[in-house]
């Protein structure tokens, strides 16, 4: 129900427009921004190559966060639930890929079946199989969680569902930490293909030979960086297509807008919610595999902080918005990498949450968020 606010004679317009001392807050923000820009600019001039290196690292981190943030933003957009377990599904994804590589040698099955295949094709098919298996397990897990834990609480107070989500998250972390499941140790990850590092400088792109450091003033990156960026952008495009152009996408948008009205229109809301969980978790699993390949170490609590930061990224970009999740994740990645480079490594979490608070103070619905409608 839209109310014409301006024509209402009782609205105290004069009171609302009186914003005293607003320059203090603006001045504070400007000072903060100038300080940050000064630090960044100063370092950029001092050592541009190092700065670009940090930006590249931040991009890698940011695109992984984007994969997780997509699931958060979609689930929150539809059921208004902070799915704390999402980060742990990310963890499960990386563990499943680890076991399918070490226990079943799944990344080598094409070579075992067809010995004549070229090596590149074997690597590609094998890695895709590993990723597909992880994604499938994540989907099965997420749909089970949704059916068992969240569905009975659909009509309960939102906070009950949130606490349940925390419980599920704890369960996955500690059940995974049991010795016969994943064990609680830090495990070095066995990559399905060799991570090759390159450096780029004035004379072009060169492969780094093991044992020799890249020349000063060059920027290094690896093949996994390129894969993460490409995959993340492809996923983004795919989801845009799914949400905007397909029937299930229309159903998702309708459910997100008004669940009861969607039900009246003949949409199977439960199915749509399950589908949303499934697709979000599939990409969390994908993110888990890529994260593990890039950072080559896994343990059962690895999902907590990336999960939280991905949620922060989703909020930053405007929750419920897919491009927002990508933009927010890139901002988080940059903030984290630059903080690690120029301030101090442990402060990266602090900076992430400070950015969240500052952005929400200026724009309460996030960067791409639509203004929230009134509580129904």
């Amino acid at each position, binding site marked *: 129900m839209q109310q014409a606010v301006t024509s209402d004679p009782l609205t105290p317009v004069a009171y609302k427009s009186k914003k005293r001392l607003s320059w203090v807050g603006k001045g504070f923000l400007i000072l903060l921004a100038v300080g940050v820009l000064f630090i960044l600019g100063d370092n950029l001039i001092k050592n541009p190559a190092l700065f670009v290196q940090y930006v590249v690292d931040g991009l890698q981190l940011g695109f992984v966060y984007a994969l997780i943030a997509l699931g958060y933003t979609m689930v929150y957009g539809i059921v208004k639930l902070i799915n704390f377990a999402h980060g742990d599904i990310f963890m499960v994804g990386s563990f499943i890929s680890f076991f399918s590589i070490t226990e079943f040698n799944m990344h080598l099955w094409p070579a075992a079946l067809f010995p004549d295949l070229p090596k590149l094709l074997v690597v590609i098919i094998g890695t895709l199989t590993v990723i597909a298996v992880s994604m499938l397990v994540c989907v099965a897990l997420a749909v089970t969680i949704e059916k068992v834990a969240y569905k009975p609480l659909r009509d309960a107070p939102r906070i*009950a569902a949130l*606490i349940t989500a925390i*419980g599920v998250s704890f369960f996955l972390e500690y059940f995974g930490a049991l010795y016969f499941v994943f064990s609680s140790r830090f495990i070095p990850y066995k990559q399905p293909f060799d991570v090759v590092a390159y450096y780029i400088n004035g004379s072009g792109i060169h492969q780094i030979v093991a044992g020799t450091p890249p020349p000063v003033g060059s920027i290094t990156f690896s093949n996994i960086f390129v894969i993460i960026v490409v995959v993340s952008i492809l996923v983004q495009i795919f989801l845009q297509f799914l949400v905007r152009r397909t029937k299930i996408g229309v159903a998702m948008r309708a459910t997100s807008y008004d669940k009861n009205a969607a039900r009246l229109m003949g949409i199977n809301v439960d199915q749509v919610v399950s589908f949303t969980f499934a697709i979000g978790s599939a990409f969390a699993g994908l993110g888990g595999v890529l994260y593990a390949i890039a950072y080559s170490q896994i343990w059962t609590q690895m999902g*907590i902080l990336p999960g*939280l930061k991905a949620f922060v990224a989703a*909020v930053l970009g405007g929750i419920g918005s897919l491009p927002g999740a990508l933009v927010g994740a890139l901002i988080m990645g940059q903030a984290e990498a630059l903080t690690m480079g120029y301030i101090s490594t442990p402060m990266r*979490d602090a900076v992430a*949450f400070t950015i969240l608070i500052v952005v929400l*103070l200026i724009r309460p619905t996030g960067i791409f968020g639509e203004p929230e409608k009134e509580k129904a």
Partner: protein
Amino acid sequence: MEIFISIVKIALIIAYFYGLLKVMDHSSIWVKILGIVVAFGIVQLALSLQFGDFQVLNAFDNGLLMQACTMTMVALGLNLIYGFNGQFSLGQWGFYGLGAYCAADITFRWARGDSRGLFVVGFGVLFAGLAIWTIFKMLEKNRGVPVLSAFTLYLVAVVASSAVAVVLGNLVNPVLSPLLGTISEPGILNSQIVKEIIFFLAIVLAGIFAAEVSFLFGLPVFTLGSDYFGIATLGFSIVVYTLMNNSDTILGFTEMKGGRGMIGIEKTTTWFWAFFFLLVVIIVMRNLINSGIGRMIKAVREDETAALAMGINVANNKLIVFVIGSLFAGIGGGVYAHYIGFLSPGTFSFINSFNPLIIVVFGGLGSMTGTITASFGWTFFLEGLLRNLLSGLGTEAPTWRFVLYPIALLLLMLLRPQGLLGTAEWGFLKTTFLKSKKIKIEPSEAALAGKGEAG
């Protein structure tokens, strides 16, 4: 057998609190005081008496008791914020940690001939409190200042007053430090009685410190809305944890030793102090909830818009509740630090920040009785009973504990989402209603005049 004893212990503790709260509900003040003294004495006797090998509450139980007392304070604070005011906060653990480190640092330095801990925190808390109060009053007169501007004003004032406090503390220190002596040769100001006083001051100051930090933090964060508020407070816990882990490098407090943990804190907390602070927290909170402010707090939980329409300043109300809740958490932290004697950042990691939340939910949102029984039951169950039950599992036992406890949480959420006790309250904690005054309605003069004309 041990399991049976553990169950009996939990039942006895619940019965103990039932009795204590009943006695405190008595109309005569002398019976109340007597009841409290007897309640204190019973546990003290159980702790100190020994019959051969058997002790009713042994050293392990003593530890659990202290832990449960601090947990109750923290959880009561969270119940005030979340259960009574409806603000979903995960930052309680961060304030608990702040209180613990602040109190520990004061007594730690005092024992080592450095009075700066006490005086810097004391002056800082005092001046910052005055500055906040002045600006608060000023802003109440001049409505319409944006939150960000108000926050900037508070921040500048607090930073300035803290700087003054640091200068003053450094001025006072050379005068006092000869009197304090060192840890091997304590001076006159390091006798047992002075130490107890300093301990008391340290805990109060730690509580107020946590409260002031929560004021500064809560002011901008409360404008974000409920879910985002939860995430931002979780972020606060993470930031506090990070700072603790790097307290010797980033913050420069070398005695806190960063991630290695702070050792050598005086173990001053006895059952007396734990009981005293717990009782203070319970009484303050009960009276707050049953006062006019308490009804405002509940009104904000039920419906913010309606509360606003009734003339309640919703923003200030939420903020004040948040500050009081953090005050309790800070006090709890101080008590904990002086019981355990060793502070490690791992204790205050954000995974544990869900513990008070789970206790509050188990006990029932908006039920003080529920929180008290749940936190005692939780501590004894998790640490005592579950440890006994799972001891056959060896090194895997702690992990199994955390596997079973989310399952219990899930079952509770599915079967009884309002908590084990719902909103039931015992004895002293029951909502009191003011006796309604009989108001004599006198007919107004106009009505009388009208009547006269008519007649």
